[in-house]
């Protein structure tokens, strides 16, 4: 491909080395906590407090075994997948539709809408929880994973829209024009032209929506009561406390178990952000 060709001939090795050094330096800081948590998960709680940065005296998978023995972990993973998956899909679909409308149309009240979007990002979940709780109860969705999903969808849409609006506005609309001249209506243009073009942004928004939905403990704490309906974050939060004292060992194991699937989702979605694929999408 022309792209790789261009890159090969351009850079000097010295520049590359310096760049890698900077990047590695930052990478060390971001990877350290994860390694620390992973190592800590092999220690008993008291050892984490006594020597937080030491090598485990006797590494043991006991924390993981405890978790697996006591709780229905696979069921909780499944609940999490349904929860965060449905939130992500709805946010992406509704968010991109609305973002496209706002980015491309001129209409009265557009700036007001923009302001509402920004404001709604500021509404903290706990200051809207009681009215939301009433609605969810009226829908008979308490203790149901979708009772958590609906407010999360509402909460994540504004972020998705802000990012997507920015992205769509920075694209020229030539391709849309061309499609229009060829006789596409605006919905065809949206689904056949715009969506493929904004795929990297959709991937980005998906990642964050998924992560936030997955990690959002507060809504789950409020709406989920029966362990059978718990998503993984809620379940593991429950068992990392023992006799009112945080059990750091279990906590660390819980974090590893919570984080791994998200990283997988990220790596999977991230493929969509790679340059070559976008270029391909534009041309194809």
């Amino acid at each position, binding site marked *: 491909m022309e792209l790789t060709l261009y890159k090969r001939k351009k850079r000097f090795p010295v520049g590359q080395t310096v760049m890698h050094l900077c990047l590695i330096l930052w990478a060390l800081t971001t990877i350290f906590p994860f390694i620390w948590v992973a190592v800590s998960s092999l220690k*008993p*709680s*008291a*050892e984490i*407090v*006594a020597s937080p940065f030491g090598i485990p005296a*006797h590494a*043991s998978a*006991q924390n993981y*075994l*405890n978790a697996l023995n*006591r709780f229905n972990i696979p069921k909780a993973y499944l609940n999490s997948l349904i929860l965060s998956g449905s939130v992500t899909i709805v946010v992406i*679909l*509704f968010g991109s*539709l609305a973002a496209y409308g706002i980015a491309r149309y001129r209409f009265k009240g557009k700036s007001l809408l923009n302001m509402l979007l920004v404001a709604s990002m500021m509404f903290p979940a706990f200051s809207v*929880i*009681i*009215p939301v*709780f*009433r*609605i969810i*109860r*009226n*829908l008979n969705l*308490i*203790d149901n994973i979708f009772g958590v999903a*609906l407010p999360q969808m509402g909460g994540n849409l504004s972020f998705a829209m802000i990012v997507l609006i920015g992205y769509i506005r920075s694209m020229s609309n030539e391709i849309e024009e061309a499609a229009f001249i060829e006789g596409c209506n605006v*919905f065809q243009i949206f*689904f056949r032209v715009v969506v493929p073009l904004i795929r990297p942004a959709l991937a980005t928004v998906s990642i964050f929506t998924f992560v936030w939905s997955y990690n959002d403990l*507060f809504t789950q*704490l*409020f709406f989920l*009561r*029966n362990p059978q309906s718990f998503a993984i974050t809620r379940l593991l939060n*429950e*068992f*990392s*406390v*023992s*006799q*009112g*004292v*945080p*059990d750091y060992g*279990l906590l660390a194991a819980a974090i590893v178990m919570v984080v791994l699937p998200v990283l997988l989702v990220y790596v999977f979605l991230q493929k969509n952000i790679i340059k070559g694929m976008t270029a391909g999408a534009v041309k194809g």
Partner: protein
Amino acid sequence: MKKRFISLALAALLCLALFAGCQSTSPSAGSNPSAGSNPSPAENPSPEQPAGPVTIRVRAMFGGSDSNKQNYDNAIAAYETATGNTVQNESATADDVWTGSVLADFEVGSDPDVVQFWTLTPGNPLIEGKKVVSVDEIRAVYPEYAKNISEGALKGCASPVDGVTYAIPTNGYWEGTFYNKALLAQVGYDSFPENWTDFIALCDALKAAGITPIAESLQGEPNYTFEFLMANQVGSALPSSTPKALGDEASGHITKVLEHFKTFYDNGYYPANTTTLSRAEAVQMVADGKAAMMFGGHWNRGGLDISTAEDGTVTTQAATDNIELFGFPTENPAVRSANSFVGGYSSGFMITRKAWDDPAKRKACVDFVMAVTNDENITNYSGASASPLKVPGKLPEADSTPLLERCRKVIAAGENIYPALEDTWTATAREGFLYRDIALYCAGELTADEVIQNLINDNQ
């Protein structure tokens, strides 16, 4: 287009949801009869004879990975086998969010059938809203209810709203002084000093020897220090010593207490970073043998003790063998004996009005509460804390540790136990006074009068 249709359909659905939401915000005074997952059993004629097995919904605060959670689950399983009823078990660790979600349940009319909740100020809305049934009312129909619980414990659970008892406690709490006898021995003390002068001398000696005398997190949990200092001023009048106006008697006592705090702070009895230290770090200082004492509650025992993992690895906190429990030094033995404690009851099982008025559920709920609060279960739950039983049982061997046994012995020999003053305060007052203003006073940023005025305002 298909997708267009779907979007429209979803939009319509959501609009419907909105109206449903709006509708529900109108009059919320009467509880909504259609709530809950069970069909209304109104046809049932007699309250004494339910038609068959029912499902009851229970929100309790047994959570986490403790043995108590397991004990509770076992008790439920036994109840289900014995009665044929089903329990919808919604037990979880109690924290601020949990408390809010229970209150929200009652607020929107989705009351559970049985709830284990706070008996003191956080639980007031349940009493004020007449959402739960008193023990006396239940006993009028079921005289056996709570028979095994001591009258003192039931009285300790009385609501501050009306002085009536609604809850059956599973365990009590106590507060006292944990100290390290080896560190005391280093500066020449073979027991904890009982009077104030000796106590101050001990702190000075420790300080001179380079040992932190008191592990205190000033914005973490200075409540225990506060309760004891206050009890030293007023003795058994402790729970009724909230100041009503600047200059009243209670204000004078609070001023005195604040001065003691300032003495501790200014003389360096506290760690150098006492205003930024977390409570967990403070407990750790005692566990590591870096500080000579701390004032705390029965729940701190675990952090100072041995823990045994399931694979048999035993982790002992460094100072465990040297940790002892003591009351608190007295300023005037006529007012309060050094060998007395702060303690009482703060939570318990209650039957909701809604379940009580439901003929199908009434007996099931009564049986449930009696089952989970029978002698054996309560003995299991209470651990190092005080047992509310008339005849306290013996803790199972496996759950016991030497330190736990030492604590139980000291508590059993205590001369008196005072219910805490802070429990009669509003959350606003507790937060403001204990976790903010004491520290600000010590740092010289508030005067005693300002602190007391805040306390008075926040308690309204």
